[in-house]
Every structure is written in structure tokens, then in C-alpha cells.
């Protein structure tokens, strides 16, 4: 950021979008800054601070939990409203990121937009069918499902002036179980593989199954084959094992400093097994 000359502090969303669109120099937005501050991009000459737009909130309304995009992960981790989702996996996921001083500034929007292989939050957004609200233009917004949002790198699909403003989670059902398992070498470290599962049960069988896998491949994804396998069947040990094996076989893993592709494949199977078993135990405990 050595050529950074201008810094703006808009107090309205429309003002922020306008600044991002109309600057004659390369302009980006900054929230917590943990990614931007260390950036070596010397072509950026202006930054727009989006943390003062009132996008820091967590509210439960109309059957949804809505989280503003500049809400820090520490706040999500400690929020009663967020904790109500899927046995607390959204809050758990947030609290397993880094350490407190970093969670105090890393925002949910920033975490999902600056997507890297080791990014954590997308896994729970995917398994809970979250929706992402984007301010496309000064007066235009759109809402897209997490599944579509994470099909490509957000930095490529979002134009420089488009701002993620809110993440919307549908309230989870009572007859359900959610689980999140992250494997990292030390606590708070980058994820080697993370798995998020959410199961709803009706009349003794899975009426909804979601299996999301993060950090195993460049982009997080759901294992739809495993979900189809699980749905309409009773959730028990045998089918969980099959689903876990299916995930291992269908997810194309990558090599990186933190783990080989082969190791990641093994982890995928183990963590899916653990997460689904945890879902099953939680559902049985509710009965």
C-alpha cells in the first residue's frame, strides 16, 4: 500500500458506493484491514473505510438471524442471537478463528470476500444455506445464496464498488442438529480442513441434509452427493460412514504448506464422520 494517498470515511452506504465508483485512482474498501494493511498492491491509491456505515449488528427477526457485514467475529462468537443457530456452530466457527485481537477487527463480510483457501466462515454459511446481500450500486441491492456466492472468488465476481452488506441465516429448526469441526495444527491456526453439517429430521428420517467442506480445495463447497445419500433415510452410523467416504472420494483436495492433498482427503472423511455423528447425537438428545 505504499502509494496510498487518500482515505475516506463515508457515513452512508450510498456515499461509500459513490466514492468507490467515482475515484479517478484505484480505490478499494477497507473494513478490519487485516488483509488490506499488509497488501503489497502499490497500485491502490485510495481506501474507503466501510466500518462507519452502521453495518455492525446481529439481529433476529422474521425467522432469520441477520448479521451486518462489518460485524467483528468476536461479537458473533459472543452473541446470544447467533448462538441460537444450529447448536451454536456459527459462533463456534467465529471463535475458532485466530485470536481475540484479530477477531475484534476481522469482519464477517471481510472474511468471506477476501476468500483464501484457509478462510473459515464460508463453511458454516454454506451448510446453513445463508444468503448474502450485496449493494450493487447506489440504489440497487441483490441477495444471492451462499452456494452461488462461493462458486468463484468473490474478488473476481464483485465489481470494485460492490459492497457485501449483510449475511442472512434462516433460523434453524428444533428437530435439527448442527456441527462444525475444524482441523488446524494449533488452536486458532489456519484451517487445514473444516466441515460444517446441518441435518433436519422429520418422521424419523432426514428431511434436509447439508454437508459443507472448507479449506480442502481452493473454494469451499457442499458435497451434494452426500446430501442426497442422507436425505429421506434415518440418520445412523452406517449411512454416516458412507456419506463420509463419499465426501472423501468426491472432494478434490489441494497440496499446501499446511497439509498434502492426500492428508486432507483423509481429514475430510474423518471430520465429516465426526460432524454427522455429532448432529445425530444432538438430534437424539432432543427427542
Amino acid at each position, binding site marked *: 500500500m*505504499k502509494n496510498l494517498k487518500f482515505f475516506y470515511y463515508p457515513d452512508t452506504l450510498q456515499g461509500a458506493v459513490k466514492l468507490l465508483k467515482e475515484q479517478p485512482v484505484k480505490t478499494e474498501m477497507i473494513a478490519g*484491514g*487485516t488483509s488490506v*494493511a499488509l497488501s503489497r498492491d502499490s497500485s491502490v491509491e485510495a*481506501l474507503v473505510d466501510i466500518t462507519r456505515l452502521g453495518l455492525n449488528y446481529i439481529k433476529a427477526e422474521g425467522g432469520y438471524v441477520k448479521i451486518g457485514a462489518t460485524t467483528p467475529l468476536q461479537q458473533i462468537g459472543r452473541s446470544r442471537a447467533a448462538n441460537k443457530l444450529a447448536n451454536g456452530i456459527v459462533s463456534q466457527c467465529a471463535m475458532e478463528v485466530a*485470536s481475540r*485481537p484479530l477477531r475484534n477487527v476481522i469482519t464477517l463480510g471481510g472474511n468471506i470476500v477476501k476468500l483464501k483457501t484457509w478462510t473459515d466462515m464460508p463453511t458454516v454459511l454454506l451448510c446453513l444455506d445463508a444468503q448474502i446481500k450485496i449493494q450493487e450500486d447506489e440504489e440497487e441491492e441483490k441477495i444471492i445464496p451462499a452456494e452461488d456466492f462461493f462458486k468463484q472468488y468473490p474478488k473476481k465476481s464483485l465489481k470494485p464498488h460492490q459492497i457485501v452488506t449483510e449475511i442472512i441465516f434462516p433460523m434453524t429448526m428444533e428437530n435439527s442438529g448442527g456441527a462444525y469441526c475444524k482441523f488446524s495444527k494449533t488452536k486458532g491456526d489456519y484451517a487445514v480442513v473444516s466441515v460444517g453439517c446441518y441435518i433436519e429430521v422429520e418422521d424419523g428420517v432426514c428431511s434436509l441434509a447439508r454437508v459443507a467442506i472448507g479449506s480442502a480445495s481452493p473454494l469451499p463447497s457442499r458435497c451434494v452427493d452426500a446430501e442426497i445419500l442422507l436425505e429421506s433415510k434415518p440418520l445412523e452410523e452406517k449411512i454416516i460412514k458412507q456419506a463420509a467416504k463419499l465426501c472423501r472420494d468426491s472432494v478434490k483436495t489441494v497440496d499446501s504448506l499446511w497439509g498434502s492433498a492426500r492428508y486432507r482427503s483423509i481429514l475430510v472423511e474423518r471430520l465429516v464422520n465426526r460432524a454427522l455423528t455429532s448432529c445425530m447425537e444432538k438430534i437424539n438428545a432432543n427427542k
Partner: protein
Amino acid sequence: MKIKITINGTEREFEIKGSEKLIDLLRENGYKSVKKGCGEGFCGSCTVLMDGKSVRSCIMLAAQAHKREIVTIEGIGTLDNPHPLQTAFVDEGAVQCGFCIPGMILSAKALLDEKPKPTEEEVREALDGNLCRCTGYVKQIQAVMKASEKMRGEN
């Protein structure tokens, strides 16, 4: 560009380069307690409080702190009038080389300001981001627990 930051209770105005980091601004203006360890946001020796919350000053642009309140350890106590956390760290033997201490104490202060009676687990979580190569953390956690008792008037 000009920015205004309240540091340890005093509002100050600075002329900065856009790319300047908060840690450099603070150190150049006399707040030498803020240490540069890793420069990447991992070690915690650069920890300061911003609006009461612990943050990493080494991966924050100074411009982000405009109109915010920053607290460094210079602002929480003096040699004649130390903060209970500072006293506890000395009394419990929680200081060896001292490099990690300013950041560690500020993280502890942020916790105790929000939660005057933390559990040991909560102290560990709050201090998790402050690495110490000397002490092994036992005395530091003890010191925070002792300080919290003192601050609640319990001993």
C-alpha cells in the same frame, strides 16, 4: 493526510502518509511500549486497545484509527501509581524479559473491563493472542486472576 486520534485520553492530530501503520505512528510519537515483534499480526507484542478492544497495531493502518480512542500501557498506570494488573504481574513473577508484557496486560485489561470476574478459561481465551517465549504463561494467568480479585475489592 490529517487524522485525529485520542491516545490515552488526549486528542492528538497527526499528519500521516496513507500507508503508515498504527504501530509506527505510535512508536514515533513516544509510545515505545508498543513493540514490533512479527509485523504480521501473530505475536501480539504490538497489541493496543482501540475503543476498549484489543487490536493489532502492526496490521492496522494509522488512518483506520481516525476518531477512535487508543490506549497503550503508558496510559493505564505510572511507576508511582501502577494499575492493579501491573502490580499483580510484578508480584506474581509474571515478567521475565518483558517484551510481551505491554500487549499482554492490555489484553487482560480489555477482558477485565468487560468481565470483572472471568473464569480461568476466559482469561486464557483473552490472552491467547499474546505469545510469550519466556514464562510459560502460568504466572501471567495467575496474575490476571489475582488482579481481578483486587479490582473487585476482594483482597
